[in-house]
């Protein structure tokens, strides 16, 4: 267990990369970019976790209780926003690509060779 989360993070990164290079559809490719992003969630989450500690919300627990890392969680919140905005931009691009090229297959987009 002590290295499983890290292994999952690494796996998600690599499998997402594989999805991107082997994709035949831009929408699929964009979702794979999202999978790469989720690797960073898992890694950050694992880095911020403390065995047996509580969530850093001191409502029902007294101040001073051992809590997990709030800083990392704040970073992850930013990360979530970054992901969704990047995906929104990329999907908009993909829609326009389809409008102009009539295809979403990256193999058929050869406008920029050389």
């Amino acid at each position, binding site marked *: 267990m002590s290295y499983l989360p890290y292994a999952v993070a690494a796996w998600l990164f690599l499998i997402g990369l594989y999805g991107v290079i082997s994709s035949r559809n831009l929408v699929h490719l964009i979702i794979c970019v999202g999978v790469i992003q989720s690797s960073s969630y898992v890694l950050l989450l*694992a880095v911020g976790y403390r065995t047996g500690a509580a969530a850093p*919300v001191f409502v029902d627990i007294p101040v001073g209780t051992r809590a997990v890392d709030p800083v*990392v969680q704040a970073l992850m919140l930013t990360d979530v926003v970054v992901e969704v905005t990047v995906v929104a931009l990329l999907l908009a691009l993909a829609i326009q690509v389809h409008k102009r090229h009539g295809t979403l297959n990256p193999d058929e987009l050869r406008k920029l060779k050389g």
Partner: protein
Amino acid sequence: MTRRIRQRFFLISAAALALCFVWGYADLPPFGHVSSSYANIVNAISVPQRHITDAVTAVNFDVRGFDTLGEEFILFTSVLGVILLMRRTKDEPAGDHEDKAPGRKVPPVSDAVRVTTLLLMAPTILFGWYIVVHGQVTPGGGFQGGVILSSAPLLLYLCGSYPKFRGAAAPRLIEIAEALGAAGYILIGGACVALGGLFLENLLPLGTTGTLTSGGMVPFINLGVGLEVSGGFTLILLVYLEELMEEKE
């Protein structure tokens, strides 16, 4: 490169990259045993010094508030970007938009669906609002609540009232709300300077821990973020919806 060459080339590189991952990650402290004095200090000061019970909110809106300012502008920029990318260019035929083509058939929606979705509207808005305002007390805050709020106009679409919504120039109002939210964050920061502090320095009275007004300027930032996020997401979804509806067969 052909597909096969690309895949082989990638697999070799990925194997090497996997080695880097293994070496790097194996050197990490075992899971659950990472320590950070930064985190410990933040956990220790969030309630006594800031009267904020949710330490994550304390980091996001107070200690590292400037990051969140950047984050708001990432969303703001993306919204502008999506609007820019989806705009109608001159060479496109001015499609038969539903407000320009009154004869367009509105998809039939049964009264039952209409009533249910409208009934869902109120709880959605309430829930979103609840999540926004309790940001410094319980998990949640401007971002999470904002996204929930942005799903309300979508319900309108589901129940077929979207043309009315659009007709009421609501998108324009949402644009204004979004820009105000983004500008508001900077204005709050600037107000701190005007009050004699540094940018984003929390100078307001801190209030009673656990109430909606605790945390000094945090509730204000929270509201600004909620405005910006709900507006931003609504706009993104609206642009996508319009794009979907503009070309009818």
